[in-house]
């Protein structure tokens, strides 16, 4: 689904966010990208969403080389990808229903069809009863779920999320991750940037660890610390499940 080959991203100020990064995510995988802030997680997601373009290297998404997506074709490209943001990026002047319906309106889906899709998406995130409310009246966790409903309403094959649980407490974070898990179970590929390692290990998904713009070397990790971390996570997981 996603393949990066020797991707380097250098910003105009000379800072290199990614240095020759090569990785791949298979269809139907749920993968986490971890790393400290500044490790290049966000840049990776921004390259996939075509908010940025790589300085060198190839980014291939669903068989499509992003280099060949012209400026004019970016909107159509983005409509194939669901995106979830740490700060939700909702439109606060309109109710939940309209926020979730926005991708469908952009794609030109008929009214009745759109209403059905929106309700299905809201049902997925457990907000069916709140479709008439405005985002401000919702809690942060609920707002994030509105953001997720919007990302999945047009049924993308790929969903990318940048720190989706960054502002949420552990309970809400787990709830959000469970929602993601359910999408993954029906075949959606997910790439999630997060620094919440304990939570990720609970879910037992593959982890791509970035450090300083490149893949973290396995041997750099402290085996003991990793073992302890795993053990703790396993214990916690048993608690949850």
């Amino acid at each position, binding site marked *: 689904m996603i393949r990066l080959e020797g991707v380097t991203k250098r910003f105009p100020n000379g800072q290199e966010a990614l240095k020759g990064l090569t990785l791949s995510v298979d269809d139907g995988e749920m993968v986490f990208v971890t790393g400290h802030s500044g490790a290049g997680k966000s840049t990776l997601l921004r390259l996939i*969403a075509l*908010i940025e373009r790589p300085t060198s290297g190839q980014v291939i998404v669903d068989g499509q080389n992003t280099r060949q997506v012209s400026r004019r074709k970016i*909107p*159509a*490209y*983005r*409509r194939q990808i669901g*995106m979830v943001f740490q700060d939700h*990026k*909702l*439109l606060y*002047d309109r109710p939940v229903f309209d926020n979730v319906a*926005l*991708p*469908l*309106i*952009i*794609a*030109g*889906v*008929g*009214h009745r*069809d759109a209403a059905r*899709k929106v309700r*299905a*998406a809201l*049902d*997925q995130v457990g907000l069916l009863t709140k479709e008439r409310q405005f985002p401000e009246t919702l809690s942060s966790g609920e707002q994030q779920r509105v953001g997720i409903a*919007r990302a*999945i309403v*047009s*049924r993308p094959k790929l969903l990318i999320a940048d720190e989706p649980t960054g502002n949420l407490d552990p309970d809400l974070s787990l709830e959000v991750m469970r929602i993601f898990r*359910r*999408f993954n*179970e*029906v*075949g959606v590929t997910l790439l999630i940037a997060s620094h919440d390692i304990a939570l990720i290990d609970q879910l037992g998904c593959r982890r791509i660890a970035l450090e300083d713009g490149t893949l973290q070397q396995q041997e750099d990790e402290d085996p003991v610390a990793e073992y302890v971390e795993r053990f703790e996570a396993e214990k916690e997981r048993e608690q949850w499940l």
Partner: protein
Amino acid sequence: MALRQTSEALAPVRASSPLKIWALRHVSTCIGALGRLAKQPFANFMTILVIAVTLAVPAAMHLMIKNAQSISGKLENALDFSVYLVADTTIDEAKNLANIIGQRADVESVVFVSAEEALAQFKEHSGFGAALDHLQGNPLPHTLVVRPSGANTAQSMTLLNEELSSLPETDLVQVDTEWVQRFLAILDMLQRAILMGGILLGVAIVVVIGNTIRLDIQNRREEIEVTKLIGATNAFVRRPFLYTGLWYGLGGGLLALGLVAYGLYALDEPITRLAGLYNSSFRALALDLRESLTIVGVGVLLGLTGSWIAAARHMRRIEPR
């Protein structure tokens, strides 16, 4: 349960017929833009008022010229003909002819001016008195001053002119249209000046609307970024702003018509009184349908132009960060 719902929601998104969607999308954006304007009635009314006044000024001046032209057209029909008779016409023949012409339905009165009277008048008014004394004989012919009746139209005036010219006794028929022609030339010039002024005012409207839309775009920057982020095209993001410009122009055009109509209503009574003093039944002309439609159409066009320029200039720069 949850899984079943998930797969139902996963069914591919089907789009309805493209034309229907296109039309529906435009209608909803159009109404949406109006709704957004209604949320800030005072500020938006001010913008519309500025446009209306800017449109009403050239419209009112055009109306003034149109009325002046209609008055001068009527004056042209009230001009006297000077019929110069051939040199060997006798006074009796001339008086007889004056009687015949005076009986025509399209003629109000005929005044006979003999060659002697004409010479005397000429000596008095021309300042060539002394020089004219040296003339042998009178070079001036007898003249009939024919005043057409008020009921004449431009066509019947032309006909009368032709018939008077074709009389065997007639040497030359002259109509004193010079001042009317000068007046009409002045009106023509003024009309062009209004057109040029109107173009400048039109540019002002484009700037006003463009600036208002620019502020609107800046206020909605975040919304534009988010919609672009989830795959909106430039055209999609631009559309509500174009409709906002259209509403401004339409509102301004309609209000301009209202302002002009009110001005005419306010002037109607004094105009009737003034016309009454001249024994005239003159009534000021209002804007006709075509002119009204032109004003509204120009308003809409300028609104769209202003918003288009603003949107094209500022929309491209707003990209998700």
